[in-house]
């Protein structure tokens, strides 16, 4: 049985690069209710930026397509973020997750998935060629002393 989130936001936007900043700022604003540290917030923003950039660059390389982003809060201060696209998909997810692997050319470093993995507690990538990709990431936000 899938757990119900205590709170969530859902956004849909076109794959324009100007929306990268919007997406990470929106998630950061939503996550603020978990009272994250600056470090935790930085990690979450970075991971969101990587996932959304991947969709913009790789899912829709020659067109503007739809990206949906969902951020949910579950019991235990767990923040879950899902970035979904309906683009070309990833032929070999395992290969795509390897450090330095990129099909994005000189402008990309090939470190996107490596950073999502190291900044978040869990990362699941599901993809079907020609149908799209769903990236789901989780991060537990520590409860701080003195917090109600």
């Amino acid at each position, binding site marked *: 049985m899938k757990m119900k989130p205590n709170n969530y936001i859902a956004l849909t936007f076109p794959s324009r690069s100007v929306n990268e900043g919007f997406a990470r700022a929106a998630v950061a604003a939503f996550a603020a209710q978990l009272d994250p540290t600056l470090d935790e917030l*930085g990690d979450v923003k970075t991971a969101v*930026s990587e996932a959304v950039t991947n969709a913009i660059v790789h899912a829709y390389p020659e067109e503007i397509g739809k990206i949906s982003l969902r951020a949910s809060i579950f019991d235990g201060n767990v923040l879950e973020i899902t970035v979904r696209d309906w683009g070309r998909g990833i032929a070999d997810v395992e290969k795509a997750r390897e450090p330095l692997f990129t099909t994005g050319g000189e402008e990309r470093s090939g470190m996107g998935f490596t950073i999502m993995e190291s*900044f978040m507690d869990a990362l699941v990538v599901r993809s079907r060629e020609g149908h799209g990709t769903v990236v789901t990431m989780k991060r537990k936000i520590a409860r701080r002393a003195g917090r109600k």
Partner: protein
Amino acid sequence: MEILSAEKDRELTLLLRGELDHHGAKAAMTEIGQALDAALPRTLTLDFSGVTFMDSSGIAVVMRAQRTMRAFGGNVSLTRVPPQAKKVFDAAGLTRFVPIR
């Protein structure tokens, strides 16, 4: 992203200001390339003190600057890197290629 340039005795320092993501990376690469072509420096220091957010796009920007400088026989270092950007560089193992002072 705004880039401010200061040069002395063929030592070029570029101060980066703003958010460095994929959206701004291409313009940043072009601007850094133009600054290098104009100054032909022996050393390039990228001052990150004004970078308020950076994702892996910043790694590609630094690696591009490093390749260009190597072609001139020069080198690149980074300075005043904020914690969030430092964490991204560390996760990528960038310090094996470019020193952070």
